[in-house]
């Protein structure tokens, strides 16, 4: 631990700053210069910029208070145009040439903000004031809300899409060390020396953590040298991954952690092909949290004035960035760490007064130092007020004891330390419940979480010696848990220094005025008093009522102070009051980084069939079906969609037509229990399906409702090929695996998705056989030897294929499966062969029309999860002899009702009128709203083959209502009379497919 006069040499070194390389930047439109190694905050301070923004609610001027993730005030919009980023903390962005930043809340300027008038109205805007007003008159509420929204938000979103790339990457390691300060580096070194796979992350671009701001001696070396040496050694270990500039932001079950690495600062234009940020998804066996601690402010009147900073930040700006912050400083501290700032201030040439509420102690090691440096220490004293308009100019100090003396000290800087809060976010994300330690005046980790250790300041151990030692110990323990043998790397004796204990106090009851707890949201002590008075007693209620901790720092600076204040008001202990829940992320994470590469074309990769380029070159329009892109229709020059579909429909019924059916799901089913399984999953029976035969099957959910359908073929003994709907393929496979694995593990049957392996071409129409004969070898295609619903293996255009005589159009049809890699040649050959019969390709629209003419359903269009096979008039497919999924549900009272919604056909009086799909049906078109709906139109088309419109619908009790008149009633009020008909409009006997 530093002794008051131990080091002075580092001040000149400035630890990390290269003052010879200057960088130009702009802040709020004005040009400044900084140096390499600066953050925006340090550069602003070096340029004497004290006021950096205004607060959210009262528009009070605010200055930089910290040097890290807890900064509530210095929030800027970085860059402009498409690469701008809102709400960046000036303390966390490294300066670069040409950086442009604007305060997110500055009003017209930081000097003048019209909305600062709001402060005058502030007394009428206590927390939750909006719950108590804006209610009358009711119709003015939208107006009030617009007013409220006027003041919403900090920065602005970019105006155009993000030009940058992001990445995410999975990583595994033995030991994950979070935080590259002295404790974390010490742990990583210990672990690395034993050969373990180690990942160490550090949110700053530089290693060293708090040590960067403290000129200390570690193991006989200057802190800078020590850091350099450790990093060099770690870099030499091939199993150690160092991730600087990488903030670990989330902890999930089973040691899964997420971290975001910033590779290029926001606001900058990055090189082509580079990624701006990368999310690391790390699975570790052991995790060491060396996340440090965040300093607390203290409460007194006007404690938000610019020029008031945390003492640790003051030290950092002096030591790390070599900035002269002050000529006359006051330090207000309730613990020894404030004295470090006092020492640093003295060394940088400031006169210093220390205000310390603790009693003077004979063992105070700063007594001699203060005499030598003419530093006045006021013990048993408190600051009750800071004064100044644009910045702090003086402080009022009250000394307890005789006469309650009061002093005023002029100053240009007030450095404050109210003690330190260990960063326990990751511990809490993992389910840890922090414990309040009265001695150390802070929350510390309580019960250990398996596989996790907290060390150093994160463990409430604030001395360098403890950080170093706990690092070594944690490293050894983690190594042991991972099965490595460890040796202690070297003696790490550091002289430990007796510190005077902290006096954890939160506020003086008699200090009045505005005392700010959450600087970003302007949450004051008075606000918490009001919340408590109004009965908001849970700390979560207080937080939500006062917006404590809702800023972009998520309460890193103010929350614990707020909780302590609440505890005092509630006359409870701090443990009784508890903390609010810590929620990820630790610091905000860019949406783009979380999305990674899953954007644009890779958001959800388009699935294309083997014939996709053929479809494109033949002018197809496409439709998204599930993840697939399917040809919708193939317009020829000058054709409308309706004309193209009419042509395709006529050709399919009168000549020959082909469709790419590759997207239908295909599941290969093998095993001795395959038939048993099919019997359970489908409503119909499969025992008698011989090899070489195909059968249509319907599957239900447990609720008895239709879930999917398709044709399944017996390819050979114990070998079946199931087809599913395009959109249902993955769901059906998952469904089958679920039943097999969780309910029927005794069945010997195996499923393999082969959807992508086979391309499917369906050829149908009266000339389908003639077309097919020209390209098909080794198979007798005659109806006698290759009847409807059968399967043969054959060779088409020289390629081995599976040929099925099935049809979804009701025409004579052949469907072939061919290895997708060889499929295009087969397609071309059929296309060629069909030319003399006028073959056409058709898309999903024509397919829909043709099947609707036949009354064939499409699951998901004509059904919606509330339709049974009986509702569809498909009683024939429901076996009465065997059990199957959904059977029991079909026997339930409501499922057996006769007046359920049932599938019917609809014919309009005007044959030219095509009903809108999704139209609702009513019996009485004149009923006032709300009207009784008896069903809806599920499918509706113009049928060129029949020469009129046709529609399918689900109608209450529809099977008994054939011939009856009902009405479509549209939302615009129009009604259309329709007659209920059979759902089969074409070839009711089904003769055409059998020829």
């Amino acid at each position: 631990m530093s002794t008051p006069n131990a080091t002075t040499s580092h001040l000149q070194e400035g630890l990390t700053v290269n003052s010879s390389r200057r960088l130009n930047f702009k802040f709020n439109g004005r040009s400044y210069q900084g140096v390499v190694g600066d953050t925006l905050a340090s550069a602003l301070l070096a340029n004497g910029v004290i006021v950096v923004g205004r607060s959210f609610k009262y528009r009070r001027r605010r200055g930089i208070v910290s040097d890290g993730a807890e900064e509530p005030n210095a929030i800027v919009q970085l860059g402009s145009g498409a690469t701008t980023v809102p709400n960046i903390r000036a303390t966390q962005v490294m300066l670069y040439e040409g950086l442009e930043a604007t305060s997110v809340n500055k009003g017209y300027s930081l000097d003048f903000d019209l909305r600062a008038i709001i402060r005058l109205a502030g007394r009428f805007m206590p927390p939750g004031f909006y719950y108590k007003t804006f209610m009358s008159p009711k119709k003015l509420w939208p107006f009030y809300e617009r007013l409220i929204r006027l003041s919403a938000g900090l920065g602005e979103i970019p105006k155009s899409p993000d030009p940058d790339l992001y990445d995410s990457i999975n990583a595994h390691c033995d030991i994950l060390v979070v935080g590259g300060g002295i404790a974390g580096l010490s742990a990583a070194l210990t672990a690395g020396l034993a050969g373990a796979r180690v990942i160490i992350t550090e949110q700053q671009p530089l290693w060293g953590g708090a040590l960067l701001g403290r000129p200390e001696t570690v193991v006989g070396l200057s802190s800078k040298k020590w850091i350099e040496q450790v990093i060099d050694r770690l870099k030499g270990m091939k199993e150690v991954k160092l991730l600087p500039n990488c903030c670990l932001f989330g902890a999930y079950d089973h040691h899964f952690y997420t971290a975001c690495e910033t590779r290029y600062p926001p606001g900058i234009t990055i090189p082509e092909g580079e990624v701006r940020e990368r999310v690391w998804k790390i699975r570790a066996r052991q995790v060491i949290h060396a996340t440090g601690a965040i300093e607390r402010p203290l409460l007194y009147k006007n404690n938000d004035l610019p020029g008031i900073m945390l003492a640790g930040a003051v030290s950092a700006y002096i030591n790390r960035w070599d900035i002269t912050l002050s000529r006359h400083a006051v330090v207000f501290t309730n613990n020894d760490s404030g004295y470090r700032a006092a020492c640093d201030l003295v060394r940088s040439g400031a006169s210093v007064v220390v205000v310390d509420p603790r009693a003077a102690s004979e063992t105070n090691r700063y007594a001699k130092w203060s005499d030598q440096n003419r530093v006045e220490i006021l013990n048993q004293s408190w600051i009750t007020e800071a004064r100044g308009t644009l910045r702090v100019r003086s402080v009022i100090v009250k000394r307890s004891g005789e006469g309650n003396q009061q002093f005023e000290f002029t100053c240009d800087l007030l450095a404050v330390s109210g003690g330190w809060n260990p960063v326990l976010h990751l511990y809490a994300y993992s389910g840890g419940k922090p414990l309040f330690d009265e001695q150390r005046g802070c929350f510390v980790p309580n019960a250990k979480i398996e596989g996790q250790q907290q060390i150093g300041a994160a463990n409430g151990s604030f001395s360098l010696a403890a950080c170093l030692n706990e690092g070594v110990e944690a490293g050894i323990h983690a190594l042991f848990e991972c099965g490595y043998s460890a040796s202690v790397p070297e003696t790490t004796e550091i002289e430990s220094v007796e510190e005077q204990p902290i006096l954890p106090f939160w506020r003086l009851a008699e200090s009045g005025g505005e005392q700010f707890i959450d600087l970003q949201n302007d949450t004051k002590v008075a606000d918490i008093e009001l919340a408590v008075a109004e009965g908001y007693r849970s700390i979560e209620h207080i937080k939500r009522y006062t917006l404590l901790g809702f800023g972009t720092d998520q309460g890193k600076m103010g929350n614990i102070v707020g909780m302590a204040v609440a505890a005092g008001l509630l006359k409870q202990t701090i443990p009784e009051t508890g903390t609010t829940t810590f929620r990820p992320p630790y610091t905000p994470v860019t949406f783009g980084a979380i999305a990674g590469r899953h954007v644009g074309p890779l958001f959800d990769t388009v699935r294309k069939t083997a014939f996709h380029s053929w479809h494109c070159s033949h002018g197809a329009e496409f439709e998204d079906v599930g993840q697939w892109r399917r040809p919708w229709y193939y317009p020829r020059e000058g054709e409308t969609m309706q004309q193209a579909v009419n042509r395709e429909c006529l050709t399919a019924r009168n000549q020959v037509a082909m469709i790419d059916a590759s997207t239908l799901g295909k599941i290969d089913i093998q095993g001795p229990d395959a038939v048993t399984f099919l019997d359970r999953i489908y409503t119909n029976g499969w025992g008698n399906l011989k090899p070489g035969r195909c059968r249509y099957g319907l599957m239900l959910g447990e609720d008895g409702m239709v879930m999917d359908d398709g044709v399944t073929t017996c390819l050979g003994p114990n070998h079946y090929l199931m087809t599913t709907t395009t959109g249902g393929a993955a769901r059906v496979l998952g469904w089958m695996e679920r039943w097999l694995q969780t309910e029927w593990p005794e069945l010997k049957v195996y499923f393999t998705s082969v959807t992508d392996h086979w391309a499917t071409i369906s050829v149908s129409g009266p000339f389908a056989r003639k077309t097919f004969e020209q390209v098909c070898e080794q198979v007798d295609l005659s109806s006698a030897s290759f009847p409807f619903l059968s399967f043969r293996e054959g060779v088409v255009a020289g390629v081995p294929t599976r040929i099925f005589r099935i049809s979804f159009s009701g025409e004579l049809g052949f469907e072939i499966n061919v290895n997708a890699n060889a499929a295009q040649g087969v397609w071309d050959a059929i296309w060629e062969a069909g030319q003399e019969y006028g073959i056409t390709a058709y898309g999903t629209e024509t397919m829909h029309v043709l099947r609707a003419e036949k009354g064939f359903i499409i699951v998901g269009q004509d059904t919606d999860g509330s339709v049974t096979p009986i509702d569809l008039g498909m009683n024939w497919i429901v076996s009465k002899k065997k059990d199957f999924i959904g059977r029991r549900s079909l026997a339930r009272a409501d499922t057996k009702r006769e007046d359920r919604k049932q599938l019917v056909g609809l014919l309009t009086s005007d044959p030219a009128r095509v009903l809108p799909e999704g139209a609702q049906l009513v019996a009485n078109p004149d009923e006032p709203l709300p009207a009784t709906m008896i069903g809806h139109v599920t499918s509706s088309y113009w049928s060129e083959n029949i020469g009129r419109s046709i529609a399918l619908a689900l109608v209450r009790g529809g099977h008994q209502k054939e011939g009856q008149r009902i009405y479509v009633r549209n939302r615009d009020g129009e009604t259309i009379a329709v007659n209920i008909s059979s759902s089969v409009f074409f070839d009711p006997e089904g003769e055409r497919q059998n020829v």
Partner: protein
Amino acid sequence: MQRFSALRLLGHGLTGHKHWRQSWRHPEPKREYDVVIVGGGGHGLATAYYLAREHGMTNIAVVEKGWIGGGNTGRNTTIVRSNYLWDEAAHLYEKSLKLWEGLSHELNFNVMFSQRGVMNLAHSLQDVRDAERRANANVLNGIDSEILTPEQIRQKVPLISISPTARYPVLGATFQPRGGVARHDAITWGYARAADALGVDIIQNCEVTGVLKESGHVVGVETTRGVIRARKVGVVAAGHSSVIAQMAGLRLPIESHPLQAFVSEPCKPALDTVVMSNAVHAYISQSDKGEFVVGAGIDGYNGYSQSGGYNVIEGAVAAIVELFPTLSRIRLMRQWGGIVDVAPDACPIIGLTPLKGLYINCGWGTGGFKSTPGSGWVLAHTIAHNRPHELNLPFTLERFSSGALIDEHGAAGVAH
């Protein structure tokens, strides 16, 4: 109850806000009540309020294991709408929406119900068919509903990418102008304050550990603050409904899953409408504070831990960036999870149970927040009259044995 108004706010402002009264009492539990409501979320508090207000029953306790509103009421994305497909659901949610519209006045607590409209995007031809069907059904049910073209969508929400080359291009949307968002904490506090004023005891930090039964009748609850007897017990415990039901020896057809949501850092207003998309699965609005509020999907596994998997967040963020490319550079600030109780047909269960004296209200799944007032209103009626109101008659427990399901799940395109 001390009335809230602008004038009163001014008055208190002049006296330094020293004289506001507490919003609700913090009483010790009595030994016996007419009704005990288990669960101090919005639904439970609303139930107590309507029991007192509409049915004159004031000897009521609401027992809450933690702090009121700390469950799903405080963990959702605050969307309110009633454009459900099926008549039963539509009528129930519409009753709720109507109550929302008068709630700030009724409770004398501004719940900040902001009717900025809710848009459900359609990304495929089937989505469009479903949108048409739903909009038609809504209008015929007396619920406001419109269909928007991509161009109309762009005009309302310029941030949405309607590019036809998008992975799932926006083909249209349904739009309910009366839908919107509300302040989730306000609904808890508003109901609590109003119920307390009518004499309801709100008892926090009081976890139910057992259900008291005497000869098959439920006669009270055991809690961490002692035994509390009651003539009637209403269980309104969302994700933990099955746990409480099990204490009574009742098995519910409910699965509990984590559901996650998150907000971005606050930004200047850029999105004035609630936008939902089922196909890419995301829903988003911008709060009065400027945060983008995003709902993610449900986690696949069952559990009671109020945290979900990171992969679900990844999916939701990718969907948002896909739909709103200019939001790629804003940053996720806070993420949380709740436990939702999902019934097999994704509709609630509200009504009597096989046990006399025990009433349940659960199964709201991901649709609970919007239904808070209506849910409380019908359960209060059910408890007071010992039979369901016409509105919740279809939502009984018996429907799972009769088969009279109301399948909002299966009704494709209907986001919950």
